[in-house]
């Protein structure tokens, strides 16, 4: 077995793992876009916000500590307790649901029927607003997030591949766990959409607002629901990214990587978001390894995804799975 091939396979697998995260963020986009036609630029910031909140709750941080201290002249920072991870995750989810409600109640309720570009601008505003609130609530230092997920090289894979290729693959346990969680999450979402009352109502709203109303579905409720689901997906993505690279404000930048993912997968397709995420993840890692590093001086991961998306835009603008765009004349 030539070494180059073994390296390539390892890079491929690591690309898949990176792709899982892109796929998750893209999934959050698709959920909201399908149900409301809103392209939610804030999806990445939601992941950041969720991760910040999770760390804050786990460590017993006092929210808005700076603000409180500045106004009251106090010096409080911590409650002095630690909250176990599972409970903190539950509480963070509650915060994300409240956020979903507030976003619908105070922003998008007033924008029903507006042009997509206006809705988009609103989400840009929302993104920066949330980033600011996150900063104000929890501070801007880089934090470590440890919810007890296994980390470090997977020995079993290392040894097995060493036996096969004479070269042990480095696959992080965290990535494996992330992939499993992502698979469970997507399966759960699909089952939810297919078989529950709310899932059916969600699909109805995604298909036709007027018809959905006529069968007794509250659009408002469904929109809060999809923002909550997107918040949940953001939380999962935030946990994974945070565990891997620490919770920092650059987390919101992964949202931008979801854009090329969506151009590949189509904005309305859940399978598209998954496959698109994996293709971008694998594509950018392989490209860097095979072409970027040896010939182009490296750092191609910064732009490869966008270039791939651009090629797709030219040849298949609806994405891999998106509905075909037919011009009505």
């Amino acid at each position, binding site marked *: 077995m030539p070494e180059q091939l073994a390296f390539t396979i390892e890079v491929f697998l690591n690309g898949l793992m990176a792709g899982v995260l892109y796929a998750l963020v893209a999934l959050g986009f698709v959920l909201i876009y399908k149900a409301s036609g809103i392209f939610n630029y804030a999806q990445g910031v939601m992941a950041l916000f969720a991760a910040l909140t999770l760390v804050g709750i786990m460590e017993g941080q006092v929210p808005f500590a700076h603000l409180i201290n500045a106004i009251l002249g106090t010096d409080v920072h911590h409650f002095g307790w630690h909250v176990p991870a599972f409970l903190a995750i539950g509480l963070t989810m509650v915060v994300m649901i409240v956020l979903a409600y507030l976003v619908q109640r105070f922003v998008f309720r007033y924008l029903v029927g507006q042009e997509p570009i206006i809705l988009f601008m609103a989400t840009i505003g929302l993104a920066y607003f949330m980033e600011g609130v996150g900063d104000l609530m929890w501070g801007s230092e880089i934090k470590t997030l440890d919810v007890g997920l296994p980390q470090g090289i997977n020995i079993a894979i290392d040894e097995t591949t060493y036996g096969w290729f004479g070269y042990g693959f480095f696959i992080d346990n965290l990535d494996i766990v992330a992939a499993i969680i992502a698979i469970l999450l997507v399966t759960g979402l699909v089952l939810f959409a297919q078989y529950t009352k709310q899932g059916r109502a969600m699909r109805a709203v995604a298909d036709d607002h007027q018809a*959905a109303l006529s069968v*007794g579905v509250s659009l408002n409720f469904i929109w809060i629901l999809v923002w909550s689901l997107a918040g949940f997906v953001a939380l999962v993505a935030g946990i994974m990214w945070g565990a891997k690279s620490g919770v920092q404000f650059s987390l919101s930048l992964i949202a931008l990587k979801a854009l090329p993912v969506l151009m590949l997968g189509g904005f309305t397709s859940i399978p598209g978001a998954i496959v698109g995420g994996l293709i971008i993840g694998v594509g950018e890692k392989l490209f860097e390894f095979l072409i970027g590093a040896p010939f182009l001086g490296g750092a191609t991961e910064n732009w490869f995804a966008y270039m791939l998306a651009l090629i797709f835009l030219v040849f298949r603008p609806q994405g891999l799975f998106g509905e075909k765009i037919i011009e009505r004349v």
Partner: protein
Amino acid sequence: MRVTDMTTEYTTADGRRIGGTVMEMKNITLRFGGVEAIKNISFDIREGEIRAIIGPNGAGKSSMLNVISGFYVPQDGEVWYKGAPRPPMKPFEVAQQGIARTFQNIALFEGMSVLDNVMTGRLTHMKTGLFAQSIWKGKAEQEETENREVAERIIDFLEIQAIRKTPVARLPYGLKKRVELARALAAEPTILLLDEPMAGMNVEEKEDMSRFILDVNDEFGTTIALIEHDMGVVMDLSDRVVVMDYGKKIGDGTPDEVRNNQDVIDAYLGVSHD
């Protein structure tokens, strides 16, 4: 005796029982900017009857249906339902109260199969919430089975078994109208509102649709309010007719009464608004 004056139950010539008033529109006025689409109109709908609203294009018929189903909010007037004035309601709340409808321009879930479309008509009957559904599987499954049975029964009734699994987007216009009726019926509504159920159909399709409307009313006892543009079609179908023209009510009564009403004759024959 004029049927419109009756307040008690009666039986029609073909043996259907017509009950008391289930819905009453009281002095409804609806404006769009300067346009008065509905001008101070009142009429009632009785339990078990087929009530038609007819009139030339632009008379305000669809607007009236939209007021009943909560899509439009009138500037003036009250809607009484089951003996009480109805507070302002969103369309989804009206649907939850047992009022189902179809649209003049068909509003189906194009991405879903016929069966899935009809199943959405059951949404108002799905009681089990998300939480119960995930922990109490047995009950959720039983409910699902019951809803499936109702949907399948209606699919059989409207003779669309052959296209159960077909995506709605692929169906011809006439069948889409029928699927939309199936979805509305799946809600087992107290009142069924049909906006031009026969528009755009060929003669044969119109006959089928008329038969289905009569059968629905006869077999399920469903109260039906329907809009028709074409006066001829509606006369054989309905028990009572409201005639609208330029947003005003110009006639109200049995088909025979309406047919002989001079204002109605003028509206249809004298001046064409199309």
